[in-house]
């Protein structure tokens, strides 16, 4: 090969790097290892984590311990889905493109909005992406955000808004739900968008349509973050006036993975289609008239439009969106509704059960779907430690992000959390709170 190139050594090829900029030594990293050794090393690191197989997991806060059916792994691990690049050559990417088209159809059905993209990175950054769209659509630079929006979403929006040169105004909660009067007062003629989340971070199902009226009045976009797993039973954002519905896709077909990779979904009204971020698969024909799929509306995207693109996103989360589509097909129309009902009923049971525990009370009385907030009459971190010793991850502590709920705990339910496990949680919480009150050493 060197002879064909016309050099004597590979070093000659690196001669274009000026001498002072050459490292001149191997990187200071450990020597390579055999496959067996790497496996053992990674397995040892994995063993240092208390995962949902070792602890009964009642933690949610945007990512949930759902059962991912076996066919999701079997299909997404196929080379043909795992190893291609983004489908820039549609003739040899029909599988991936059609899967995107099917995924878009499913997300459109779930959210009740006609247009879906093929997925973004994850939930909170999708919120910030919607803000960018809202600025382009309204030529305004002010966002009104409910305090019920996921704290990570609010913080991500703040980060991006520095670049956007936009202002973020927060509206507080009243008994767990977005305060309607405060929201109406905050929305003005400079407001680009109103951001709600339903169920909100405290688990409360928001009255999106009523809250959204303020946005409609000022011609601001109504952007609603939602939990896709609740959309088999809850009224979809598209039927409540949302211009954009988006969210974290992890509950659909994706593992917890300590936070990623998952995907963000992003659906909108027809009016916004040419301002959408990310890939969109579209149907078309080939030269012989066969049905086929391509990346549609690419003129929105960075590789064509460069500085005028609707977003900078390139590599997204196609494989994760495929996992979601397979999970949704496996659940099917009836299964998806049944799962939603199961979540609501088990959550109602858990809320009642936990609310009856001495030293535990409900943080709010608003209706909930799959997650709810409680208050503990004992330090939350100490109670969590005591529950962890009994093999239970009892929930998500609210104190860091909601100092006003320093005694708050968010409890999430999935179809994997049995009645017996919920009962165990009630016992564990009761015992932990009692022990803390009595000053018993852990």
């Amino acid at each position, binding site marked *: 090969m060197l002879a064909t190139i016309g050099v004597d050594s590979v070093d000659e090829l690196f001669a274009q790097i000026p001498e002072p900029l050459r490292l001149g030594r191997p990187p200071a990293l450990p020597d390579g290892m055999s496959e067996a050794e790497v496996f053992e090393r990674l397995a040892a690191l994995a063993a240092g984590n208390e995962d949902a197989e070792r602890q009964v997991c009642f933690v949610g806060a945007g990512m949930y311990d759902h059962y991912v059916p076996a066919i999701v792994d079997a299909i997404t691990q196929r080379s043909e889905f795992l190893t291609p690049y983004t489908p820039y050559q549609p003739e040899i990417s029909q599988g991936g493109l059609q*899967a995107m088209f099917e995924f878009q159809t499913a997300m459109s059905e779930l959210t009740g909005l006609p247009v879906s993209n*093929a997925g973004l990175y994850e939930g909170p950054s999708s919120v910030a992406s919607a803000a960018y769209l809202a600025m382009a659509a309204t030529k305004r630079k002010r966002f009104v955000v409910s305090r019920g929006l996921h704290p990570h979403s609010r913080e991500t929006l703040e980060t991006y808004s520095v670049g956007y040169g936009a202002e973020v105004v927060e509206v507080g909660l009243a008994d767990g739900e977005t305060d309607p009067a405060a929201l109406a007062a905050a929305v003005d003629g400079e407001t680009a968008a109103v951001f709600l989340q339903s169920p909100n971070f405290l688990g409360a199902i928001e009255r999106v349509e009523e809250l959204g009226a303020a946005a409609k009045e000022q011609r601001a976009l109504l952007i609603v973050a939602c939990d896709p797993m609740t959309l088999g039973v809850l009224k979809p954002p598209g039927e409540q006036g949302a211009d954009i519905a988006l969210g974290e896709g992890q509950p659909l077909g994706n593992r917890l993975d300590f936070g990623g990779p998952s995907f963000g979904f992003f659906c909108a009204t027809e009016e916004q289609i040419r301002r959408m971020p990310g890939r969109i698969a579209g149907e078309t024909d080939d030269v012989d008239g*066969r049905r086929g799929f391509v990346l549609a509306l690419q003129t929105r995207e960075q590789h064509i439009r460069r*500085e005028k693109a609707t977003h900078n996103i390139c590599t997204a989360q196609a494989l994760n969106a495929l996992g979601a589509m397979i999970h949704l097909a496996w659940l099917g129309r009836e299964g998806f509704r049944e799962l939603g009902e199961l979540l609501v009923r088990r959550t109602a049971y858990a809320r009642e059960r936990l609310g009856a525990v001495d030293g535990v009370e409900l943080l709010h009385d608003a209706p909930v779907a799959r997650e709810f907030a409680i208050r503990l009459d004992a330090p939350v971190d100490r109670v969590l430690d005591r529950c962890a010793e009994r093999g239970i991850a009892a929930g998500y502590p609210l104190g860091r992000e909601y100092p006003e709920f320093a005694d708050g705990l968010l409890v999430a339910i999935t179809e994997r959390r049995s009645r017996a496990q919920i009962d165990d949680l009630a016992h564990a919480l009761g015992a932990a709170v009692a022990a803390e009150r009595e000053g018993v050493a852990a």
Partner: protein
Amino acid sequence: MALTETPMQAERARTIYEKSKPGRRAAVLPEAEVPETPLAELIPAELLRDEPPRLPEIAEPEIVRHYNRLSRRNFDLDSGFYPLGSCTMKHNPRLNERVAALPGHARLHPAQDPKRAQGALELMWLLQESLAEICGLPHVSLQPSAGSHGELAGLLLTRAYHADRGEERTKVLAPDTSHGTNPASVTMAGFEVVKVATNERGGVEMDDLRAKIDEDPSQVACLMLTNPNTLGLFDENIAEIAALIHAAGGTLYYDGANLNAVMGHSRPGDMGFDIVHVNLHKSFSQPHGGGGPGAGPIAVSERIEPFLPRPQVVRRENNGHGPSFDLDHERPKSIGRLRGFQGNFGVFVRSYAYILSLGGDGLAEASETAVLNANYLKARLAEGRAGERLPVAFDRHCMHEFVLSGKPMKKELGLATLDLAKRLLDFGFHPPTVYFPLLVEEALMIEPTETETKESLDGFAAAIEAILAEAEGDPEIAKQAPYTTPVRRLDEVKATRKPVVRQPL
């Protein structure tokens, strides 16, 4: 060319919704185990949905068949050569999938108390340390989800750095050869793009760079550069470029898309860069998944560190009790979060497994082989018809990729680069990146990677030669290609003019 429909072509595309039949299903759910209270007694009726979403109704065997059929309509890296320039389509070791799927990784909740997630945090810290060494920069944030997310992070860091010094700078310089994500990120971060020209050696045109800086040095926020650049050439003037930008008070951003050329040989930090993003789905073997997931960690210099996103993974020393790992949220100058939780952890597991497998020497050898393969293929394509019709855009040794121009081919044979690309599909190859970078007419950007054999490179060169020979006889063959793919050339204009983006139900 006589057209006989292949069996795959004869099988028309039908979506899963078109295979749906009322009453069919796959999932069996657990029993409720709790009272089956009507939902309207638990949630106000007006907040409930009237009809469930119209998801497909289909049994498991048919779901599996459907997606297996779809998979056969994809070309993939495991099936053949995939020399997409700037995409680094290297082999994806299956070990990495196995370790990422261990329950300790895959079922770990991201909000787990750090003291019960020590293995995950240690892995993240080790990956941070490894990337810092590879990039030659002291600090790393793993949070960005992909290269473009890393770019946005870097520009917001730049903004925060200048603001902290009481400055508001508006301009970001980027070469005309830059990836499209660069200017798109610049706009999202609220800056203005200033294009810098390319010189006859394929590097930054120094006079133009000086002129653009001199217009108003106090407005230069940053220079974004890929090195080696998108022509596959190392910019020999990089030290001087860095000095000019630093003298103007700007930061230097390294687009790490091409890091695969220089791992263990040259480090962006030593070149003078302040911020680097690393595409773990390129150089560090995370599978591309048909368009993600990826991850785009950033490595930064000391002066940028205070502004890194939060939380940051840190190692704490505990007075002789051994180190522990934590998430540091107390970062007062931080730009804040870029996303939820800690980043694409599953990608970190795969990339760390890759780094452990290769080791320091192995990473350096990977880059050597990538450069050797690219130069060999470039030499092979300088022979015969390819050398005549597809000259290399900048005739010097390349790094990990190179760019050919299809201009003579188009002029002499009437064959556009797109035609050549489509004809390659019939030969069982994924085409190179086409029509990029923009400054090369009819560009073909070829990156073979280190995991290809000499035989596969020779096979690709032979296919190009055969297509050019065929076109000398009858250019129409390539102009109508492909013939053997599941569908033939698709009408992309129609898909954009009248977009149909979901299945009507």
